[in-house]
């Protein structure tokens, strides 16, 4: 029997109060995600239950019970308070997937501060714009990444504390740096939980758009209500499950469903902090007897590529439920997973802005491979006509995916950017920026983005950000960045560049530019291909026609080019 029971029954008379009641939350009272993910479980008798089974490179292991999570988060929270961190201060977590990441996240929330997790592979420029925008007061990082923070700290006056969790004393700490070790700190038994309420800010995740700088998506503690229930009904998590979410908490999946959803339910979860290989992943599942696995299409396609023979070398019989997120899951991957694991990966659709799953395939529901599934109970979803912004009633016609605002985990604003936030709403619909159609049975079918944002391996990359960074390279005079199709990552970054006359086009320059972007922004943003051109196609007003370059890469019809300044480009 699945937690959701019957989807068709659940959508009748649905009310989020189901979740509120299960969590013992009364509207208007205190709600603190950090407390729900640690202390509450202990008070309910789960103190000794494993919360986190962590494995790092080389097989190094650590285990934490829910009581350990409670104590460690108390200790981190106390340390932050002693540094002067107060409620609503932004504390960035810039760590690899080590235990301190998960425990810091809980500790930050417990003292009412705002957790700002950032992907640790970000380069110094990506880090800078996000810390500057958030006016971040403290950053929790590790020795490996502290050099990136040192490069930018002088232009970040709000950044008062750089906390290094693995300081070994080999080199002196520098300005604003302070060491903190969970292993040597005295555990703090009691911490006064900050009395956050439903609308108190909790998490700030950054996401990329077509234009402008990355946007800080502000979430609140009430998001727990939908993260808890979606984890329960879509991921079907149960008391004895061993759950593995492969997402990095630098991205929203890694916090909503890599920390908040499972831990608020008291579920044991596993984390593997090492590079990808099919053998390592299967061995991890076998060793930990993983039962519920939440991953991403890019990873699934990489596993497919590694071949069926590898799967056969491991005992994966513990797996009982598989789900996927990040980009559309192609039907071949669904069919393959059914063949090799005996279970299909069920696709889920949501975004940083939505905070929790919006459209999904549910356990027990008939699956149509390649479909996004149906809206979660309580979610009003539609596809809108791009011109009128009215719902399309005709089945099969492509429109803009939109949601009626009001679900608990919905973003509350973009940090310091209310105007852009407001622009996401039309006719009382939230516009997701994605396109889809709906079939006669109510299943949604994803067709693509409605803008130029590149979805690579499930992560959004802004062409504007990459183009801006490219222009900082001495050889680049002009650039245009588009998505290029990719078998594993769905899309990868491709750059068209016009180089300055004193530079010579060629492989060496291409590599230099690639590495320049990788270090400044991130490996995800690094162009996987650079094409040298003499000029870029532009409109008469001088705007680069990315549409034309995109169409060229995807073998699509170019469409109306009458506004091109130079159609030979």
């Amino acid at each position: 029997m699945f937690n959701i029971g019957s989807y068709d029954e659940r959508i009748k008379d649905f009310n989020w109060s189901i979740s509120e009641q299960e969590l013992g939350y009364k509207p208007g009272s205190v709600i603190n995600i950090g407390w729900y993910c640690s202390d509450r479980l202990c008070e309910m008798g789960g103190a000794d239950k494993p919360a986190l089974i962590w494995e790092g490179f080389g097989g190094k292991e650590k285990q934490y019970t829910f009581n350990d999570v409670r104590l460690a988060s108390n200790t981190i929270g106390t340390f932050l308070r002693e540094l002067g961190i107060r409620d609503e201060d932004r504390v960035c977590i810039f760590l690899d997937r080590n235990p301190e990441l998960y425990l810091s996240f809980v500790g930050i929330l417990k003292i009412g501060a705002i957790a700002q997790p950032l992907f640790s592979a970000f380069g110094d420029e990506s880090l800078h714009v996000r810390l500057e925008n958030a006016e971040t007061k403290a950053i929790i990082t590790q020795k490996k990444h502290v050099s990136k923070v040192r490069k930018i700290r002088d232009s970040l006056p709000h950044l008062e504390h750089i906390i290094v969790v693995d300081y070994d004393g080999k080199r002196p700490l520098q300005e604003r740096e302070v060491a903190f070790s969970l292993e040597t700190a005295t555990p703090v038994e009691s911490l006064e939980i900050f009395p956050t309420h439903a609308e108190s800010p909790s998490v700030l995740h950054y996401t990329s758009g077509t234009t402008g700088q990355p946007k800080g998506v502000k979430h609140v503690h009430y998001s727990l209500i939908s993260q808890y229930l979606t984890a329960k009904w879509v991921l079907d998590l149960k008391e004895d499950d061993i759950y593995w979410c492969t997402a990095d908490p630098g991205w929203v999946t890694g916090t909503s469903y890599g920390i908040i959803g499972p831990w608020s339910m008291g579920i044991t979860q596993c984390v593997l902090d090492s590079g990808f290989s099919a053998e390592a992943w299967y061995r991890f599942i076998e060793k930990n007897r993983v039962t519920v696995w939440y991953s991403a299409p890019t990873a699934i396609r990489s596993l497919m590529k590694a071949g069926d023979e590898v799967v056969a070398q491991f005992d994966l019989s513990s797996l009982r439920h598989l789900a996927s997120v990040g980009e559309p899951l192609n039907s071949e991957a669904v069919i393959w997973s059914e063949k090799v694991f005996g279970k299909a990966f069920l696709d889920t659709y949501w975004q940083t802005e939505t905070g929790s799953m919006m459209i999904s395939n549910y356990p027990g529901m008939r699956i149509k491979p390649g479909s996004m599934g149906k809206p979660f109970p309580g979610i009003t979803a539609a596809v809108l006509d791009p011109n009128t912004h009215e719902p399309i009633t005709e089945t099969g016609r492509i429109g803009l995916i939109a949601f009626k605002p009001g679900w608990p985990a919905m973003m509350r604003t973009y940090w310091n950017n209310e105007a852009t936030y407001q622009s996401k709403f039309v006719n009382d619909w939230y516009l997701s920026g994605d396109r889809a159609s709906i079939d006669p049975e109510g299943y949604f079918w994803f067709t693509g983005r409605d803008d130029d944002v590149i979805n690579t391996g499930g992560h959004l990359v802004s062409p504007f950000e990459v183009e801006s960074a490219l222009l900082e390279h001495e050889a680049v005079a002009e650039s245009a960045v588009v998505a290029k199709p990719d078998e594993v990552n769905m899309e990868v970054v491709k750059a068209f560049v016009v180089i300055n006359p004193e530079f010579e086009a060629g492989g060496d320059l291409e590599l230099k530019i690639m590495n320049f972007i990788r270090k400044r922004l991130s490996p995800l943003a690094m162009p996987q291909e650079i094409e040298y051109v003499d000029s870029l196609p532009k409109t008469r007003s001088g705007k680069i026609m990315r549409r034309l370059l995109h169409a060229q890469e995807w073998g699509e019809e170019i469409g109306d080019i009458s506004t091109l300044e130079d159609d030979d480009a």
Partner: protein
Amino acid sequence: MEDIKQVILDYVIEEYVEDEDEEVTFDTPLISGGIVDSFSMVSLKRFLENKYQISIPDEKASPEAFDTVDLIVELVKEFTAGK
């Protein structure tokens, strides 16, 4: 081949190793060890192709084949043989 090994190791350390105290040798796992991620692997492949004037097909450029400097040298040898 010792020279190639050292050249590749030096390049990996220079470009991908963030922790200045981290010791990386010829058999240190690069991909499975989290030093080089799958996206960055493309730039490492491009370096080898430029440096040794070879073309490594995508199907040969697997995470397993790029996992250590020793393995990368084997791969490079395969394509430089007879040159």
